C-alpha cells in the first residue's frame, strides 16, 4: 500500500501495480491524487542557475551562497515537505538567522493555532468515522479539496456506532456562499450565507441554540436556523469542519467562533478539525510550535521573534533572499505581492516547474513525497502517517537537499 500526499487526508490505502519499474495501475486514488501520480512524468524541474542548467552540486552551492550572503533571508513553503525535512528547515533558519513562514500564514493558521494550543476540542478522523452523527462543513468543500474525506471518514462510511452510515445515522450540514459539490450532497442541510456573513450566522446559531429567535430577515431562513439549533442540540457527537470560506471571513477575528464552540459543547459534544489542504501543513505548525512556541511567522534573527511582520506577505518587503520549498508562491499570492517576490533573489526547491521556479535564480528539483521519497507527516487531524518511496528515481528528497544546503552554508 502506498500513501498519497495529494492532500492532508494522506490516504494510506493506495494500491499499485508495476510494469518495467513503472506504475501501470493505481487503485483508490481520487482525481486529485491521480493528478499527483500523473505528475511524475510532467514538467519536472531541472537544476539551474540564472536560467542555465547546471549540475546538482553547483545548484546547491549557489543556493547556499545566495542564502548565506543575505542579511534577511526568508524561508517559505514547508506544507509539502515531510516532518523530517521541516525539522532540518527550522534548523537551517536558525543557522541563517532567517525568517521562516509557511502556507498556513495565509491559510488555516489562525484556526490551527487554536487547535494546536488545545483551545478548541478536536478528535481524529477515525473517531469521526466511528462516532460522529452531525457533520458541519463550514466554508469547506471536501468534495473538491479533500475528495475522499466524506467517503473514508465523515459522511458515507459505516462506523462502530454508526452502522447505518449516512442513510440514517449521519446528518450533513453545509454552510456556504455557493452550491459546491459538498452542498449538493448535504442537500436539505445547506445554509446559504452572503460573502462575509459567517459572524452573523454564528450569532444566529447562538440564538437558536439558546432557544431565542435568531435575528435574520428572511423568514424561511429564520425557521430553518431554529430547526438547525434543534438538530445540533440532539447530536451525540458533532464535528465542525471549517474551511477557507470561514477562515477568510473571520481571519484574525477567529475568536468570534469561540462562543459557538463553547455553546455547542454545553448542549452536546462537539469537536473541530480544520480542513487543511496541503499534506503536511499541520506537521510544520506542530513542529515549529514545539521548537519556538509559535506555529508560523517566526524570525531567528535575534533569538526567537514572532509577529505579523514575519508573515510572508509582509516579510517580502524586507527580505533580501528567499528560499521557497514545495510551494508555488508566485501563483498563490496577489499579483502586486508577487511583483515584489519576483525582485528577490530566490532559491526554489520543487518537484515541478511552476511560476515561482521560473522566476527563481536557483532551482533545485526534488523528489515527490510518497512516490519518490519516504518520510512522515501529520494528517489534518494530527495523526502521524509514515510513508515509503514506491518507485526509484534520481531525484533527491527535501531532507537530502536541505542537509546539503545546511552543510554548505
Amino acid at each position, binding site marked *: 500500500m502506498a500513501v498519497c500526499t495529494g492532500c492532508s487526508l494522506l490516504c494510506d490505502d493506495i494500491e499499485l501495480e508495476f510494469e518495467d519499474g513503472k506504475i501501470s495501475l493505481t487503485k483508490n486514488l481520487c482525481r486529485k491524487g491521480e*493528478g499527483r501520480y500523473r505528475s511524475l512524468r510532467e514538467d519536472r524541474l531541472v537544476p539551474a542557475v540564472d536560467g542555465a542548467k547546471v549540475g546538482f552540486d553547483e545548484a546547491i552551492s549557489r543556493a547556499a551562497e545566495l542564502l548565506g550572503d543575505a542579511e534577511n533571508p526568508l524561508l517559505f513553503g514547508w506544507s509539502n515537505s515531510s516532518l523530517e525535512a521541516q525539522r532540518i528547515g527550522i534548523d537551517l533558519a536558525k543557522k541563517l538567522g532567517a525568517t521562516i513562514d509557511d502556507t498556513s500564514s495565509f491559510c488555516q493558521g489562525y484556526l490551527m493555532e487554536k487547535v494546536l494550543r488545545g483551545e478548541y476540542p478536536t478528535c481524529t478522523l477515525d473517531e469521526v468515522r466511528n462516532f460522529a452523527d452531525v457533520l458541519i462543513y463550514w466554508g469547506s*468543500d471536501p468534495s473538491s479539496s479533500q475528495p475522499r474525506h466524506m467517503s473514508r471518514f465523515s459522511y458515507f462510511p459505516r462506523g462502530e456506532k454508526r452502522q447505518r452510515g449516512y442513510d440514517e445515522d449521519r446528518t450533513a450540514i453545509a454552510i456556504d456562499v455557493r452550491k459546491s459539490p459538498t452542498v449538493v450532497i448535504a442537500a436539505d442541510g445547506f445554509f446559504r450565507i452572503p460573502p462575509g456573513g459567517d459572524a452573523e450566522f454564528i450569532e444566529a446559531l447562538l440564538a437558536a441554540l439558546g432557544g431565542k429567535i435568531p435575528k435574520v430577515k428572511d423568514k424561511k431562513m429564520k425557521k430553518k436556523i431554529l430547526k438547525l439549533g434543534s438538530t445540533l442540540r440532539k447530536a451525540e457527537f458533532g464535528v465542525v469542519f471549517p474551511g477557507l470560506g470561514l477562515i477568510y471571513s473571520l*481571519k484574525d477575528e477567529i475568536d468570534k467562533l469561540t462562543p459557538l464552540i463553547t455553546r455547542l459543547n454545553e448542549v452536546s459534544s462537539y469537536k473541530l478539525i480544520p480542513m487543511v489542504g496541503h499534506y503536511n501543513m499541520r506537521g510544520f505548525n506542530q513542529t515549529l510550535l514545539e521548537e519556538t512556541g509559535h506555529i508560523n511567522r517566526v524570525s531567528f534573527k535575534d533569538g526567537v521573534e514572532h509577529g505579523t511582520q514575519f508573515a510572508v506577505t509582509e516579510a517580502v518587503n524586507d527580505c533580501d533572499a528567499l528560499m521557497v520549498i514545495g510551494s508555488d508562491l*508566485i501563483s498563490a499570492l496577489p*499579483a*502586486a505581492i508577487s511583483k515584489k517576490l*519576483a525582485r528577490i533573489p530566490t532559491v526554489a526547491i520543487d518537484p515541478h516547474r511552476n511560476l515561482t521556479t521560473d522566476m527563481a535564480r536557483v532551482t533545485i528539483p526534488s523528489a515527490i513525497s510518497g512516490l519518490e521519497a519516504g518520510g512522515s507527516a501529520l494528517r489534518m487531524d494530527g495523526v502521524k502517517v509514515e510513508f515509503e518511496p514506491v518507485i526509484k528515481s534520481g531525484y533527491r528528497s527535501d531532507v537530502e537537499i536541505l542537509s546539503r544546503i545546511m552543510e554548505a552554508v
Partner: protein
Amino acid sequence: MAKVEVTIVTYRDIFQEEAKEIGRYSDEYRDLSALILLDRGDMKLIKTEDGQTVQVETDGGMVVVTARLSEEDEEHPGLAFMPNSPWSNQLVSEDTGTSKIPEFKRIKAEVSATDKDVDTISELVERIRADY
C-alpha cells in the same frame, strides 16, 4: 461599454486541482482556471453570453477570462465566482489588513464584455516580471 460591479468569491474545483497537479502551464489548467461564473442577469447587463470573454478589473489589476453562466439555483446579481488561480490573484489587493491575509474571497471588481483573448499564463508571468 456596459460594466457590472460584482463581488468575486474564489473557490476550488477538483478538475482544476487535478490539472494543477499535472502542470501550471497546460492549456487544460488555463481552461479550468481562467473563468468567471456570472449571474444570468449580470450577463445580460453587459451583453455577454456563456463562453465569451470578459475583462475583469479591480484596483489591484486586470484579467481577461471566459464568462460562464453560474449554475446556482437562486439568482445572485452582483455575486460572481472564480476558481482560485493565478488569474483570480491578478485581481486581489495587496492590502492585507491586520491579519496579513489577502482578501482572496471577497474581491470587488467590474466586469465588461471584451473581444480580447483569455490571458495566457505566460502573459500573467510577463506582467508580474514587468516591474523588474
